[in-house]
């Protein structure tokens, strides 16, 4: 298991390759990359605040739960904080399992939990000003699936 919380840019492809490298006991690898999306074409940057003392701990707990529940061979979570430009990767998740259903479900689960239970807050800076991104009821509801 690898959990990283960082300000620096990461290379999703290189991370996926090093996560996948040299395994012969794995049949399925799923990755998710979250990207700063410029919905209306006026996003200057996205600021991500986090709770340093809690972040790694919370992500590790969620990831351990996913590994146990879906018998994953391995899992990876990288999440950035700080100012991010449109098109930049915000975070990624990768899961490795014997079969595809486990890899898909575990990645989906990780995303739902990271979204609503890892201590990050997004603020969008546009030419109209800066606004905190509101949590969606749908994101909280998504947790009930698990």
């Amino acid at each position, binding site marked *: 298991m690898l959990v990283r919380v960082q300000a620096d840019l990461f290379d999703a492809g290189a991370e996926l390759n090093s996560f996948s490298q040299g395994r012969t006991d794995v049949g399925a690898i799923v990755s998710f990359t979250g990207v700063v999306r410029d919905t209306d074409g006026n996003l200057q940057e996205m600021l991500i605040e986090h*709770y340093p*003392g809690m972040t790694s701990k919370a992500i590790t707990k969620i990831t351990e739960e996913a590994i146990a529940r879906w018998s994953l061979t391995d899992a990876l979570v990288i999440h950035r904080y700080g100012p991010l430009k449109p098109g930049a990767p915000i975070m990624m998740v990768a899961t490795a399992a014997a079969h595809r259903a486990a890899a898909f479900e575990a990645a989906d689960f990780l995303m739902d939990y*990271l979204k*609503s239970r*890892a201590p990050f*807050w*997004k603020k969008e800076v546009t030419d109209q000003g800066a606004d905190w*991104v509101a*949590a969606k009821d749908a994101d909280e509801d998504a947790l009930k699936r698990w």
Partner: protein
Amino acid sequence: MNVIYFAWVRERIGIPQEKVETQATTVNDLIAELRAREERYEAAFADITALRVALDQELADFDAPLEGVREVAFFPPMTGG
């Protein structure tokens, strides 16, 4: 006890963290004390349903006891991922 604020809670209160001397026994009691202090606390804590709390870096309920707790954090619902 160390009290930390994040996102718009931090912005409304105007500081990222502070030491608070309190006899409050639950999170709700602590919030009541803070609201009574100044308008900026009242603004931050007016709608408790828009807030989340962590005690010693674990999510908790507002009626959780504060005994033994060293760090309380208040913030809006998380928007990670």
